[in-house]
């Protein structure tokens, strides 16, 4: 009997249908007494004729999956066998669609792509903040659960900064899928989470245009082109690509890691809030760089110095998002001032942070006015103007501040939900005040304090005695 065929057993696990036979490993379902179990077994291809990287990839996968905190964003490791005896990994079976399934439909509608992308970026952020870099991000390594959450699979080429990097300097040809890997990966750098952001950008590019940003290189020389050549702007291929989407894609695909998004949470934020994306020249570009800058970059690429890897853990916290809850009510200037002062102190303490100004209004369906102000769009614009007016004295650069008018009957729930989805690090909210006119969110502050996924500062103007 085929040692890996259905019915065979490894360490007491009974194998079922083989669902994947790759060059590095095979994957089978596990079965129990009464049919398939929600588990898979991954067995590396070892032995004569197989590549040495297979063994190491197995060790890395086991190490990284074993170290990650249990989460929806990667399969849970259940059991494993050792390299010296019988190597295998038993993991959760994720029953979901593969991002690869969307590829034949490319170019995708921008909204659909933004949804898929935002979920994937959140999954990436989850592993990055645990000091893991995936380094083999491609559509076949991304699954989606039925609730829309993205799941990253196959950590065989990953890097975890708390563990020895068994793949470092071991293999001369660049590891990973050459269609998607970042310029610094071409040079063997394995410790930069921004490499995943580049690959993420390459996936978005592919799904937005139906083309690979750097073709399908088959030689090292071709592979090295991404060290100096920028991709054809998506708008030149699919004219309907919105500027915000091109901005996000090309921001991810910057050659120098320092010029990309600093964290996947920021990418998720931008994909979830397209109107807030600050469009630069990147977003509206119609053609690639002309020969003069290209020549300069080509000359530099010969001695390409990759950006130093950011230090572990603290790198993610470097671009925190501060949510300031600004009430829709007019005329509470002392509280507006107090919130602004509190925000100013946080901004001064961290020159990387971003400020999201948020207000909550009742759903449009409840509006019934005739006047411009009372229509949904009229009201929306008025609220945006209020938010901008509040933020103006802070003097923040455009890309560091965003404005959001949320529609909900439950302001606290809307704020908390927003904070969760956008990975907000701190919330500033006005304190309730007894007596006098109602503060902006009566009763909301308490609920936000108790349920928010992050720190909440309750702000109150100094009371004159």
């Amino acid at each position, binding site marked *: 009997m085929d040692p890996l065929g259905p019915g065979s057993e490894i360490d007491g696990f009974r194998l079922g249908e083989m669902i994947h036979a790759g060059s590095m490993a095979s994957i089978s379902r596990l079965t129990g007494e009464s049919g398939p179990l929600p588990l898979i077994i991954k067995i590396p291809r070892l032995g004569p004729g197989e590549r*040495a990287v297979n063994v190491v990839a197995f060790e890395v996968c086991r*190490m990284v999956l*074993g170290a990650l905190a249990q989460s929806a964003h990667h399969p849970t490791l259940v059991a494993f066998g050792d*390299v010296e005896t019988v190597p295998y990994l038993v993991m959760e079976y994720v029953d979901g669609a593969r991002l690869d399934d969307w590829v034949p439909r490319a170019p995708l509608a921008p909204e659909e792509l933004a949804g898929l992308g935002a979920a994937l970026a959140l999954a990436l952020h989850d592993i990055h903040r645990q000091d893991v870099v995936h380094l083999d991000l491609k559509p076949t390594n991304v699954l989606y659960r039925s609730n829309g959450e993205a799941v990253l699979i196959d950590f065989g080429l990953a890097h975890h*900064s708390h*563990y*020895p990097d068994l793949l*470092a*300097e*071991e293999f001369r040809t660049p590891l990973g899928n050459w269609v998607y890997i970042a310029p610094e990966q071409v040079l063997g750098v394995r410790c930069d989470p921004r490499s995943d952001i580049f690959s993420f950008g390459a996936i978005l590019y592919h799904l937005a245009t139906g083309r690979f940003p750097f073709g399908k290189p088959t030689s090292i020389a071709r592979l090295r082109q991404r060290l100096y050549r920028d991709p054809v702007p998506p708008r030149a291929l699919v004219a309907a690509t919105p500027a915000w989407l091109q901005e996000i894609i090309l921001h991810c695909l910057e050659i120098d890691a320092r010029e990309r998004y600093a964290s996947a949470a920021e990418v998720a934020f931008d994909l979830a809030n397209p109107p807030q994306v600050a469009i630069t020249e990147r977003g509206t570009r119609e053609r690639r760089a002309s020969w003069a800058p290209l020549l300069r970059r080509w000359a530099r690429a010969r001695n390409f110095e990759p950006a130093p890897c950011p230090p572990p853990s603290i790198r993610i916290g470097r671009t925190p998002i501060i949510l300031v809850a600004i009430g829709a009510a007019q005329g509470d200037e002392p509280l507006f001032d107090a919130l602004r002062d509190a925000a100013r102190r946080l901004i001064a303490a961290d020159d990387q942070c971003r400020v999201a100004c948020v207000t909550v209004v009742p759903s449009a369906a409840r509006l019934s006015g005739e006047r411009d102000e009372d229509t949904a769009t009229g009201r929306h614009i008025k609220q945006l103007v209020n938010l901008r007016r509040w933020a103006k004295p802070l003097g923040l650069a455009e890309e560091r501040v965003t404005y959001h008018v949320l529609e909900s009957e439950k302001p606290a729930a809307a704020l908390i939900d927003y904070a969760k989805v956008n990975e907000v690090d701190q919330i500033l909210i006005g304190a309730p005040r007894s007596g006098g006119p109602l503060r902006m969110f009566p009763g909301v502050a308490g609920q936000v304090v108790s349920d928010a996924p992050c720190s909440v500062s309750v702000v109150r103007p100094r009371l004159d005695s």
Partner: protein
Amino acid sequence: MKLALFADIHSNLEAITACLAHAQALGADRYAFLGDLVGYGADPVAVLDLIEQYGANGAVVVLGNHDAAALGRSDDSLNVNAQAAIAWTRNQLGEKQRAFLGSLPLTLRDDDILFVHASAAAPGDWIYVSGPTEAEQSIAAGNAGYIFCGHVHEQKLYYMGAGGRPMPFRPVSGTPIPMGRHRQWLAIVGSAGQPRDRNNKACYALADLDRSRLTFFRVPYDHGLAAQKIRSAGLPERVARRLERGS
């Protein structure tokens, strides 16, 4: 089987006591003391008597360069402060402690594990394993799956890559690292009694031999008391300050 590994204890009773308690709480049942039991610190007699007891119960103990110097073997590589501390230490030791130090081997081998204070390439030459080249020489000469050593005061793990070159790794305290037996490993467990990486917590490591995992630890201890004893003994002020700052 959980093997606790201590090196460069340097007569620091507070540090080694805290590390031993930490290891015991995690289920340590075997012990290895990788040399430099004395030097610098103010408790040579208490530390040697404690380690001798562990040795009598089966613990591995090997000789370090400060221990050799305390026995009167000349060592020009020691700096002024170290020389002063060694001269002071010699006067503290009695016959019992000298006999114990005199009985210690330079290396010990247990199955696939080699214990040594410095480099296995020339254990009596006290070569610092300060980079991949020295690690490669030690691994080549050690001919063991695992080499556990000290001498360099900072924790470092070298693992043999497929290219035949040892790769350096700076461990994170408390993270168990799988150490497959199909590779060769060299672990510098770090100094228990005189950390020097701007972190004043004591260093040690715990090897889970059944599960092939090694965990490096940093343990807080009463460094203030250890420093105070050094000052009271009239030992160099620089040595006391070093414990407080960890540098």
